[in-house]
């Protein structure tokens, strides 16, 4: 069983890990500063928010939906945290539940409207992208809320480990997410719904609660990502995480999650996050301009999807 599962993991993640290793190798050759502990700890401390959002996005894509509002929900959750701590003087422990609730409610709204009224999630979450961003500006009065050291505990690297609690939290979310997707009835139903919803219905399973739960989960993870980001920046920025939805979708797709639903892996999405951030950091160290960074990152996404499409076509 164990040798079989190791073999299975090699097949599933081997290709992605290889891509990651090659990228690290190439950047190490191009820049002598790259292959240092500091590079990796800085990457690790930058990615918790994207990782958390990508975990939720994986579930959304698996059930055959899409969530464009993750960046805005993150910003709104962060704004609520900032407003409570700065304006109302709440302590962090009291503000966190409200912040998470904000994210979860936004997700619940996305799911309920999209599933309940059979509206494509693309449209509903596009609306939420604007609504949550606007609400963020209302809550913060369009000002960055500086919180300072009270919130930094989550983002500061721990001694010895050099990794932040936020990163460890994100890592835990990846593992729990993968467990949820591959080992539980909930995950199995999500995959089944994304594959053929009508077949699932005709098998005597109510699909709506599961789809709505997935959107709520994504919202909740955005709230968690909001905390991670706020602690990293020491403040709640109303313009935070603009365009994050695209990075999250890109990470999932690089990891091999299908936009058509029914196929995906949380761990693969996490490797997708790593690939994107290693690429960004490496290109910056090599001295590539922002404009060229964008072109290269975009190309990597297209190549990843292309490789996936070819694998599907000729793999069978």
């Amino acid at each position, binding site marked *: 069983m164990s040798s079989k599962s190791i073999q299975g993991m090699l097949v599933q993640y081997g290709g992605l890990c290889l891509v990651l290793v090659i990228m690290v190798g190439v950047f190490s050759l191009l820049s002598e500063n790259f292959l240092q502990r500091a590079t990796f700890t800085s990457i690790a401390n930058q990615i918790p928010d994207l990782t958390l959002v990508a975990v939720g996005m994986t579930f959304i894509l698996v059930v055959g939906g899409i969530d464009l509002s993750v960046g805005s929900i993150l910003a709104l959750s962060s704004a609520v945290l900032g407003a409570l701590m700065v304006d109302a003087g709440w302590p962090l422990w009291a503000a966190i539940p409200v912040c998470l609730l904000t994210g979860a409610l936004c997700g619940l709204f996305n799911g309920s409207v999209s599933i309940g009224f059979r509206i494509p999630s693309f449209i509903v979450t596009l609306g939420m992208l604007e609504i949550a961003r606007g609400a963020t500006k209302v809550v913060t009065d369009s000002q960055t809320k500086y919180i300072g050291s009270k919130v930094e505990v989550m983002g500061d690297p721990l001694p010895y480990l050099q990794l932040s609690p936020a990163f460890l939290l994100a890592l835990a979310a990846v593992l729990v997410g993968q467990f949820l997707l591959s080992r539980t*009835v909930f995950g199995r139903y999500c995959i089944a719904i994304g594959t053929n919803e*009508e077949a699932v219905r005709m098998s005597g399973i109510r699909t709506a609660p599961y789809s709505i739960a997935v959107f709520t989960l994504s919202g909740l993870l955005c709230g968690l990502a909001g905390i991670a980001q706020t602690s990293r920046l020491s403040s709640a920025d109303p313009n935070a995480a603009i365009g994050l939805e695209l990075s999250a979708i890109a990470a999932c797709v690089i990891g091999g999650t299908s936009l058509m639903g029914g196929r995906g892996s949380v761990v693969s999405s996490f490797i997708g996050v790593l690939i994107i951030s290693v690429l960004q950091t490496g290109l910056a160290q090599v001295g590539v301009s922002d404009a060229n960074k964008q072109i290269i990152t975009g190309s990597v996404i297209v190549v990843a999807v292309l490789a996936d499409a070819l694998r599907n076509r000729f793999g069978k």
Partner: protein
Amino acid sequence: MSACPASLLKTTGLTKKYGEALVLRDGSIEVQAGEVHALLGGNGAGKSTLVRIIAGLVHPTSGQMEVNGQAYQPKSKRDAESVGIEIVQQEFNLISTLSVAENLLLTRLPAMGGVIRQKGLHRQAREALDRLGLHEIPTDAIVETLGVGQQQMIEIAAALYRQCRLLILDEPTAALSHAESESLFSWLDKLRAEGVGIIYISHRLDEISRISDRISFLRDGMMIGTYQAAELTTDEMVELMTGDHPHHEPREQSCTVHDRTADYALRVDKLSGGMVDDVSLDVHQGERLGIAGLVGSGRTELLRLIFGADHASSGAIYLSDDPTPKRFSHPREAVAAGLAMVTEDRKKNGLLLPQSIRVNTTLAAMVKRFSQSGLIRFPAENEAAEQFCQSMEIRCTDIEQATGTLSGGNQQKVVIARWLATDASVFLFDEPTRGIDVPARKRIYQLMETLAAQGKGIVIVSSDLEELFETCDRIAVMSNGKLVKTLQGTDMTHDAIMQAAFSGYLQQEAQA
């Protein structure tokens, strides 16, 4: 057929094979200019295949066709149109978001430099509609806002507008009201006078004997013969469709008369919804009830109502000895109550094609058998999947093989295994062996027998009468949304079933 004008279309020995299945064995028909030539046959007789070959939509496996004495080998619908052959099929080919005019002239929109000339468009469309007497349909109406009958008429108008010499109509009146049908018939008369040949397919025997000049009969993919319509009664038509089948030996009944008083497995009381109209039936434990009827008579719809997949407007369902009337609003409730349904289209709403045999097998019984507090019990799941693969002889590399890569018969076995895993007490099978090879079919019949022996109630919808004879204790016949007759024992004959299957459409004609 003596001293007749030269034939417009002549086909000889057309055959069509799909894989191993020979759906058309001898499609020979000869249509003259200026006649309405009806094509009759039971389910799966090959009518649609034959006309689709003529219209260039399907390529024949062998055989010849001639149009006006010239060899004719259409590669596409376009080739057929270029010699003046048009087909109006049962499914609409209209684009629902475009206007009537745009649909009518879709392939030849009047345009200048890519810009549509609205005036010309609507004038030409108006002409096409007026020719059919459809003065009340505005040319700028969006197609999806129109009724089904009007859409059907537009479809016909579009075919007519392309100046056809041979028009094929496949069940044109199924969606039409009485008045619309009448206007279609008077228009067919006009076309006939203009020398257009018409091939006409319909279930409604009354209208066939009324409008057609000649009738050709297909049976099991073979052309039986062509007759003058005036010389046949509707009873004789049914006889020609069924032919003199060898009288099948009534199968040894698995339920004796004594058993028939045994407990009910399922009772359906006056169930209505959609096209299903006031259907009552009962199935005893250990009994296999067949449901026969023409395609579109409401058989699938009935099963879906029972299973809660569609909404029933009235009526009730009783299960085993439970006296509480039920009506399921979601398949989930039906499954919880012990029902199972093997759907007609296993690819569309049965299987998760990219997923493994294991995942497909355990889907319906996931919560009940293969999980504990939300966690999947993988050993139990693997074991069950392995066991079903073995006991049902599912041919596969292993239980992780994607079901999409299995053959049709093995796919169907996986769907059935999914329900066996739930330990249901009533099984609804909709076309359980469509597109399945003979060995797999036999295996599925065996399974049904085993289930019956275990005391399950079984309902089998099938278009294949031989299948029903082989598997069922009783056969109920549906026609036009109603359950018109239930036959058992020696009364279960081809003739009796076909008579009943067409009866609902005759009555409607008489009432209209």
